[in-house]
């Protein structure tokens, strides 16, 4: 069986399980929408007290948020590995994964996917269209292509960071509170990085490059030319980070000793 066939199998099984608990599925989608609304409320409330955030208007910040939602939704659908440590290492589930002839990371991604998150891409595009309309942005023919490239880059950045974090568990199987916090840090990539000091800007660009899943790529669509070089780097950073993470994962798996029952 090739990887595509396995993927299709998992998706169809997934849909079956989800349809068993319909009420929960609806609540889950609503909670996603709620989550997206929360951040929007934050922006709206803040801009109720100020007109510009270091030179960026409310609509521009909303646009960045809309862009962010698209890669974030795809990431959320496939990289649900924030509880990797507890679920796979502490409980020893990794043993089961490793006995199967498919790449372990691929299996975990499939087992933990939450396809209803993909709904967030529509919300994100909706928010972008609204903000773009308010700002009177022009769309040229190659913008959709760049959009897809930037989104893929963003997903890979997010995926890479979280896979790397999951890899920590191979070396140290103690519980960690890092993963949930990382979701918060991801939010800071959505604000213009020039508001932060050098250290945090550096972290958000090169160490935990969340700025590539928000402000940098959006700066291109918003016509902020001083950020163009960063914007075009988005797919590169994504590929580099994700490749590193898979590489580290492969090493990490060899260090796995099995902790379960």
């Amino acid at each position, binding site marked *: 069986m090739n990887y595509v066939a396995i993927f299709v199998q998992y998706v169809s099984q997934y849909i079956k399980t989800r349809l068993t*608990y319909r009420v929960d599925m609806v609540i*889950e989608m*609503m909670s*996603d929408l709620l989550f997206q609304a929360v951040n929007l409320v934050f922006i709206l409330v803040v801009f109720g*007290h100020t007109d510009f955030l270091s030179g960026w208007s409310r609509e521009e910040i909303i646009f960045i948020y809309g862009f962010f939602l698209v890669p974030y939704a795809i990431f959320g659908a496939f990289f649900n590995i924030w509880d990797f440590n507890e679920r796979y290492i502490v409980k020893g589930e990794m043993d089961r994964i490793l006995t199967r002839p498919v790449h372990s990371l691929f299996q975990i991604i499939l087992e933990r996917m939450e396809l209803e998150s993909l709904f967030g891409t529509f919300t994100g595009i909706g928010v972008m269209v609204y903000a773009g309309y308010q700002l009177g942005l022009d769309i040229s023919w190659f913008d959709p292509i760049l959009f897809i490239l930037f989104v893929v880059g963003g997903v890979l950045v997010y995926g890479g960071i979280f896979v790397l974090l999951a890899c920590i568990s191979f070396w140290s199987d*103690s519980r*960690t509170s890092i993963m949930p916090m990382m979701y918060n840090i991801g939010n800071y990539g959505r*604000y213009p990085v020039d*508001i932060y000091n050098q250290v945090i800007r550096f972290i958000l660009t090169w160490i935990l490059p969340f700025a590539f899943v928000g402000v940098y790529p959006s700066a291109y669509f918003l016509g902020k030319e001083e950020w163009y070089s960063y914007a075009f780097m988005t797919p590169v950073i994504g590929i580099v980070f994700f490749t590193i993470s898979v590489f580290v994962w492969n090493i990490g798996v060899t260090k796995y000793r099995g902790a379960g029952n």
Partner: protein
Amino acid sequence: MSKYVEMIRIRFLMMLAYRTNYYSGILIYSINIGAYYFLWNAIYGEKASIEGMSVLQMTSYVAVAWMARAFYFNNIDREIAQEIKEGKVAVEFIRPYHYLIMKTMQGLGEGLFRLFFFSVPGMVIVALIFPISFSASGITWLFFSTSIVFSFIINTQINLLTGILTFFFFNNDGLIRAKRVIIDLFSGLLLPISFYPGWAQQVMNFLPFQAISYIPSMIFTDGMTGSAVYNALWFQLIWAILLIVPIQFLWIIAKKQLIVQGG
């Protein structure tokens, strides 16, 4: 009673066994608070104060809100849901303790651990890096401590409620997530309640959420003084008592119609 104290102790020791990663957690928290610090500085811009809060008060608010969260936050709703799904809850019913109190005590053990090994050292580090205003008066600290105890109680009660609902929905992940988002927004963790438009503040006055984060953080930063503090503590106390009613009610029904799915 002593068995419940023992549960706190065991959970505390369990957390202690896994303490190394908490040091990295402090680093992450500091980055988080740092980013917020700059974000709020940018939001304030040239303004000296917004809604009666200076930028210094605001950053202190953010820092203390996140550090207090480490104390009151727990995952017992997720744990309860998990135990119901796996059918383990059936065994818990026959054990000689009250299941919900046991869960609360475990949450408290976790909270106390994080308070001593995470919040306190974390706060010291954050205070060294960023300008943060501490209140010097002992009475403020007394009010603050009382108030975070209530934060823990109310947050735990809401978690218990969400957890118990698994008895009725079987799969409850969506609701647990929704609850978390609502608490982040309406508890005042992300934004002080006073920043919201008037009508929203009116609505939130009828909800328990601001008792979780807004009240202790405002007390800590001296954003709330005099009679407002007493009113806020009353608000917390009343909600802590009121929330017992739906928990008890749902618990009794849940016990009657328990379906064990596995185990």
